[in-house]
């Protein structure tokens, strides 16, 4: 699906008995996604293998320490996990999926998302919403597409107020920006555990904004999962 080469199926007893689904992408493409493994920041899931020693403070990274030291943001997001490092390859695939709008690319991640979701316990899985303008422009919400492709049901607890594209802003601008999310009408999340879902974790600002609104409205725990970081 990615390289449009023919896929040579791996022959195993499982495939012989029809237990495996036909792979969407070839092994070579699959290996090109760099999965996050090894030691990582306890909060944001950043792999320590690729981080200079000086930016690591015990079991968390410098960025998360800064977030946690800030009264306004401390404890907003309990934990983030990401599937892959944001390498050039992953970046290209996500760009084709989300900006060019190749919806069927969501299927590529189905297996990995299913596997990782088993490790989470939550009441609702919530895609980071797009503003109406952005949704019209793209035609679909990429986070929602990924959740659905993996066979889960997204719950829409949040709505987004339209603003400039995140990718055009610096870290400080993103962090200082006023509230971009608000609660959808008529939902009750008292003492619930929420799992947010987004495609990319960059500064963690989007997810913390969303998490903060959820916590202010009674959520007991807010975690997040992203494809890449």
């Amino acid at each position, binding site marked *: 699906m990615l390289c449009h080469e023919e896929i040579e199926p791996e022959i195993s007893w499982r495939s012989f008995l029809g237990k495996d689904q036909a792979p969407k992408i070839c092994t070579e493409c699959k290996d090109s996604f760099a999965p996050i493994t090894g030691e990582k920041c306890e909060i944001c899931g950043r792999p320590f293998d690729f981080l200079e020693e000086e930016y690591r403070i015990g079991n968390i990274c410098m960025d998360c320490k800064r977030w946690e030291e800030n009264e306004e943001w401390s404890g907003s997001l309990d934990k983030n996990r990401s599937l892959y490092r944001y390498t050039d390859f992953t970046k290209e695939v996500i760009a084709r999926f989300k900006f060019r709008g190749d919806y*069927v690319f969501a299927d590529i991640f189905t297996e990995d998302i299913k596997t990782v979701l088993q490790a989470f316990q939550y009441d609702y899985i919530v895609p980071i919403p797009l503003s109406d303008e952005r949704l*019209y422009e793209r035609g679909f919400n990429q986070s929602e597409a990924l959740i659905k492709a993996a066979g889960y049901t997204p719950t829409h607890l949040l709505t987004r107020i339209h603003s400039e594209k995140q990718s055009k802003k610096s870290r400080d601008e993103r962090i200082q920006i006023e509230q971009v999310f608000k609660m959808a009408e008529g939902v009750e999340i008292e003492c619930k555990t929420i799992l947010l879902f987004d495609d990319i974790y960059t500064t963690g600002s989007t997810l913390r904004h969303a998490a903060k609104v959820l916590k202010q409205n009674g959520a007991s725990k807010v975690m997040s999962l992203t494809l890449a970081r």
Partner: protein
Amino acid sequence: MRFLIKEGKLIPKLDSSDDETTFSISNLPEIPQLSTNPFFEYNPELQKMLAGKQLLIDELPFTIDEIQAHYENGYLVYRKGIQKQENRPHGSSGVTEKHTNLPRICVRCGTSDESWFGEFPCARCGERDIYCPKCLMMGRVSECTPLVCWVGPESDFPVVDRPLEWAGSLSEGQQVASQRVLDAVKTTSELLVWAVAGAGKTEVLFAGINEALTSGKRVCLATPRTDVVLELTPRLKKAFPQTKIASLYGGSEERHEFTQLTIATTHQLLRFYKAFDVMIVDEVDAFPYSIDETLQYAVQQSRKLDSSLIYLTATPSKQWQKECRLGKRKYVTIPARYHRHPLPVPKLEWSGNWEKMLTKGKLPANIIKWIETRQASRRQALLFAPKIASMEKILPILRKMDPLIESVHAEDPDRKEKVMKLRNKEIPILLSTTILERGVTFPNIDVAVIGSEDRIFTESALVQIAGRAGRSADFPTGEVVFFHYGKTEAMLSARKQIEMMNKEGIKKGLIDV
């Protein structure tokens, strides 16, 4: 997006809040076209950008209200982005049901293979929508996406008396072909120019392009490869210095220019619609044009119904060769190079199971000997291998003979540098995949193919490879050998084609014997 039909007009509805019945454009049985209002003041910027094009609303930097005003006054039309090929009415509603398995075609790129299409819940039309991933990189075309085309008056090009400023001269063979191209332009007909590698094809076009430009026609020179667009652009700008020329390829800046002469990759033609009076397609046999129906579709729909179509190639397909022989296709050959020497004829040499020998770290003796002969006489060589994998096994063996030997393939980041080094004689032998089969010229080299029986070496690939040798007037000869493990039809046909061209060249007095 959705449309409302009101008073015989399509009206775009961006919000679906109303109760009125709206449609996705592909579900409309027919699209109303409106007559042109001569008193309407159209926007000349929109005209420039849209004339001869088919674009998505998202590609146009104008408001939907302005676009709609041009539609309502008959200056542009909305066309279906994806057309359902049969419009069987479903039930009594008269509107076709969306998800029956009707065959579809992407109107922009011509894809009709069902396995290509993708489905998604579209926020613009609020339905399950079908889109075309094949041409997605040019913006998503889906069943609810209209293509916008200009139908208003076209602006004229500034008249130039003598657009061609070229002082060079043509060889005898070139002159004949040049005259035929000129005729094809004048009579808006079709022509195949079959010119051997190194004949000087580009110059043959100048007179024809000149004629088209002086008579106010719009000309396109299309080629499958970006490299060729980049190479041709400065040459044509020099030959036609007063003419505005757009050079289009993936990532180029000149997308919205309205020019009389366009040089484009065949892929970029997908944005054009009934635009050109003269369409010239260079290297028709070259990947990806030869195998990609999308690009053939692009050529057809971007030219006007009444237009000239000129193909240039060194190696027409079997089918086309046959049509030429049977007189079903108009063609002209340039059977000889401008330097009046014959093309080097490839030798076929059996080299046994070379792949098996490679697994033992060895090369067949006759290949080794061939390389030693080049070394002894200090001649440079291009060596072709069918796959990157086999190339990687061959390279270490060759490096033992000479550590300066290099290899190159499509994804090699140093591709350009290595080609330069061969040209500067810093590399004695360059090992390559078919990536160097065409377009690159080295003045004085010998050429060999290892494993020429591989199916990647088609007749046209082999003719092109052989065409690398003996290019310059100073060194008009060179040796070409196909080392094989069993002769293929392609190898024999390639040799025959080259011999036939030489014979014709001698007969026509274009080669000195």
